[in-house]
Every structure is written in structure tokens, then in C-alpha cells.
């Protein structure tokens, strides 16, 4: 039996109108792996995550989760397998932290006891430093607190796969490192769009480099991140400091 956390894309192309956004994308993600999706603006990173989520339909190719095709999966079943954290702030007016988190129980109705779920919710809020914000209106939270809240909400969906679009935006360096460390330890398969190449090199098991909607490179950070690939992708000169375990630091200019 295939692990439900396994994810595969085969020869997937996505177009919006007449514009081809992704072309012939194929890769296999093993259970529990943490993948970084990297590329310049407009290279198709967010489109790739939305396609994996099933929100955008590919014009060709197939996506499978745990060996099952995504296309025919019922909406609620899909949301128990995959959760998505988006880059732009979602509409949160008029919600309190508590009621916003409770939205994550929607796909689990009938599958989990509400009391149990609530206990897990409290533990996660404690872990992500949101416990004392329980009764706060979302409009008074800082950008970083909102970002953590959205991550906690996604984890409360109990997914096998996490799709994270620029999660570290709005987070200070302490929370960037803390959250990426925690994510790394989670059993879920993770695919995250990142702009910080140093964080990607440090926390990701594999990196997918995208350019103009195509895969530019796919492999371990030490194999795909080098002076030449960074110059060709971003047009920026860099110097990569390496150590035995991999990349230690990328220096710019």
C-alpha cells in the first residue's frame, strides 16, 4: 500500500486563459520529505501549489496523493489529506482567534471527536505562542501572529501533506527559525515556497527550482544551489560556503 503522504505530479501543464503558466512538470515527493520551491517572481511557484491543492485544474497530466488521482477525490476527503497556507492575508474581519481555528474542524466533522480536537487545538496554540490570544479579534493580531495562526489552523485539519506559500513572510527571524525547525520535525510531507535561499538550504530535504513555468533543477540543496544556477535564475552573483553536511551559507554580491 502506498503511504498517504506520498505525492506525485506527472507531466502536468497549467494554463490560465491562453497563457501557459506551468509546462510539463513531473516529480515524486516521498513521505515526510520537506521540499522547497524556489524561483524568481512569476516563475509559477504559487500556481504549482494551487495546482497540487486541486484548486487549479491542469490542462494535461496527472496528480496523485498516496497513489490516488487527485482529480476525482471528493472535496472533504481532499481537505483531510492536504492543507494550504497562503501568502496573502486571508479575509479575517469579524473573526476571533477561537472561531477562526474552529473552521479547521469543518472537514473533520463526523471523523473526530470535537472535545479531543479542541484539546489538540489548545496544545498547538500553546506551542505556537498563541494561547493568550484565544479571545482576540483577528484584526488586532500582528502580521506574524496571523501567519502562525494560519499555520496552526492548517495543522488542525490533520493533513498528510502541507502546502505552504511563503510562510515565513511577516515572521521575525526568531519565529522563522522556530517554525521551520518545528515543521522539519513534523511527520507530514511539506512543500513550501520560499524566497530565502539560506533557509531553504538549511531546512529543505530537496529543492525544486522553477523558471518560466518549467523545472530548472530538482535535487538536494547542495546539488542544485550553486553560483551558476543562482546567476542564471535570479541574475545575481553569489558565493556559496560549503561544509561536509552541505551548504553552510550563501553570500550575495
Amino acid at each position, binding site marked *: 500500500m502506498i503511504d498517504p503522504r506520498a505525492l506525485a505530479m506527472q507531466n502536468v501543464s497549467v494554463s490560465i486563459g491562453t497563457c501557459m503558466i506551468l509546462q510539463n512538470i513531473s516529480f515524486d515527493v516521498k513521505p515526510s520529505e520537506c521540499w522547497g520551491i524556489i524561483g524568481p517572481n512569476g516563475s509559477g511557484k504559487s500556481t504549482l501549489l*494551487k495546482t497540487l491543492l486541486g484548486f487549479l485544474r491542469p490542462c494535461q497530466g496527472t496528480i496523485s496523493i498516496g497513489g490516488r488521482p487527485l482529480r476525482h477525490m471528493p472535496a472533504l476527503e481532499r481537505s483531510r489529506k492536504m492543507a494550504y497556507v497562503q501568502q496573502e492575508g*486571508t*479575509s479575517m474581519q469579524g*473573526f476571533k482567534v477561537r472561531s477562526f481555528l474552529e*473552521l479547521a474542524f*469543518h472537514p473533520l466533522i463526523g471523523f473526530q471527536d470535537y472535545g479531543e480536537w479542541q484539546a489538540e487545538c489548545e496544545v498547538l496554540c500553546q506551542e505556537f505562542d498563541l494561547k493568550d490570544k484565544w479571545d482576540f479579534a483577528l484584526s488586532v493580531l500582528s502580521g506574524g501572529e496571523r501567519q502562525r495562526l494560519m499555520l496552526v489552523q492548517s495543522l488542525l485539519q490533520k493533513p498528510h501533506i502541507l*502546502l505552504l506559500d511563503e510562510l515565513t513572510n511577516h515572521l521575525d527571524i526568531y519565529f522563522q527559525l522556530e517554525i521551520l525547525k518545528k515543521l522539519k520535525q513534523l511527520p507530514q510531507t511539506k512543500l513550501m515556497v520560499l524566497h530565502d535561499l539560506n533557509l531553504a538550504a538549511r531546512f529543505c530535504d530537496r529543492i525544486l527550482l522553477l523558471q518560466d513555468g518549467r523545472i530548472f533543477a530538482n535535487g538536494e540543496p547542495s546539488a542544485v544551489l550553486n553560483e551558476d544556477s543562482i546567476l542564471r535564475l535570479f541574475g545575481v552573483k553569489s558565493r556559496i560556503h560549503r561544509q561536509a553536511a552541505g551548504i553552510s551559507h550563501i553570500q550575495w554580491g
Partner: protein
Amino acid sequence: MIKMSRWSWLFAVLLLLLIMLLALASGSASLSLIDIFTSLGHHLGEGQEWSDDRQGKDVILWSIRFPRVMLAGLSGAGLSLVGATIQALVRNPMADPWLLGVSSGASLGAVLVIVSGLSLFGLASIHLMAFLGALAAASVIYFISRQGAHFSSTRLIFTGLAISFSLEALTQILIFTANHQAQMQNVMFWTMGSLGGAENKDLPLPAVSVMLGFILLFRCRNQLNVACLNEVKAFSLGLDFNALRRHLFLLCAALTSVIVSMTGSIGFVGLMVPHVLRLILGNDYRLLIPGCLLGGAGFMIIADALARHLFSPHEIPIGVITALLGSPIFIVLMRGSHD
């Protein structure tokens, strides 16, 4: 935002009952609460001899005021429920039942019958044509708003506005051709809304529609909450947004059509009541749906009592009262709100 315990809901229900009693008592012929309870006791079996005066009061109470108060409550509840739902479906706080084109469609249907004098279906023809006009307008807006399998909020808003303006223009042309005083008064009823003609036999249809609408919308309360998030996030939480929009749009169009065909076009309630309740209860549809049922009913019953009472024996259109009463409440609550 306040927390609503079971006791708070019980208090809200009792408050609504008190409002209904006071509305039954108020009007050009004064009735006391004792009159109401005596009459209620008589009908519940504690039979005693009626004097002529008591019999007259009984007729006023059960044949004139009761259907009117009930229709006011049902239409207020229904329009508020529809307003709150449409605001979530198009993710636009300015959305109200008017956006569905239902009010303008109903007005056109009714005014067409009034002005042309069509009487194919006897007395029911005005209500029937208003209902058909409302449903036809909503259906046109629904089909134009669809983009393949998707349903676009922006298209819905703009199509709703365009169709509503066109239908209102057609209604104005018809009004322009009306030349009898009686016709003009009837036309006034449809364009400003009124509960004056309510009869007991009119009540079952809106009562069943509003209760059915409430039950279905309450069942969708969690989905409506998820629908308030942006589209991708709502999708990630397992919401089939297109199916929800399709089903609830049809439900709202049918419910509004029933109400508007009975009361004429009463504006502002569907926009204002849900917003006032959002300021008090927050955006959680688990509270908003029952809140709209009780709050919308209470607000409309008060507005109708004022419409009857303020310039008694003359009656002012209820739409004027809903706007005059609702706007200041809305502004005061909005200014006091921090969220």
C-alpha cells in the same frame, strides 16, 4: 461582540414575543394586553359570552393585526436571512436581496398586472405575477453570472445591478402610463412595500418558506463561515464553493420571491439587519443565522407598528420607516465598533 449563552437566546425569544404582543396592542383602535390575553383564552377554550365590543376587538386582533404582525415578522426574518447569506456568497458587505434582482422583478410583474388590468388568475394574479417576475429576474442574473462551472461574484454584482436598473426603468415606464388614482396607490404598494393587505390565509406560504429557509441555512452555517475566507483557503478546507453558491443562490431567490410577492419591495432590511447583528454578535454564522431570524423579525414588527402609529390614522410606507429607523442605529453601532 457578545457571547450568546442559552439564556441569552431564551431572552431574545421572549423579547420578540413581547414585541409581538405590543405590536398587536398598538394601532388606531387601542387594545390592551388584557384584551389580547382574554381573546387568546377564549379561543383556547375558556369560552364565555362575547359582548359586541369584545367581538369587534376580537376581529381587529385576529383578522387584521395578527396576520399583519406575523407577515412583518416573517418578511423581516426572511429578508435578513437572505441578506446575511448573500453577503457571504459574494463576499461583499454591501450585498442585499436587492442584488438578486428579485425586488425589481417582483415590482415589474406586479405593476404590469395593476396597470394592464390583467385578471387571468383573479385576485391572486398580482402576487403570482410578482413571484414569477422575481424568480425570472433572479434566474436571468444567475445564468449570466455563471462562467462555465464557476460562478463569479463580480459578475453577479454587476449583472444584478444592471438587470435591477433595467427592470426598474421598465417599471417606471409602466407607472408613467398608469392614469387611475387606484392604480397609482397599488403601484405605490409595490415600490415602497406595505403589509396593509395581510390576511390569515396569506400566512402559510411565507411561514413555511421562512422556516424551511432558516433550517437549510442553519445546516449550512459552518460552510458559510468557511465561505467568508478567501477562495483558495475555503477550497483547502473542503468547501465546494460553486455548489454552495448555486444552491444557496436559488434558495435565497425563491425565499425573497415569496416575501416580495406578499409585501412589495421593502428595502434596507436585508442589508442593515445582518450588519447590525455582525457588530453585536460577530461574523460567526452559527450565531448570525438564528440572530437574523429573531432580529429581522423584531425589527420589522417594530417598523410596521411605527408605520401604523406615527401618523395614525394615516399609514406611512414601511420602507420609509426601515430606512429612517435603521440608518441611525447602524451608524451609532458602526462608530462604536473597533473591528
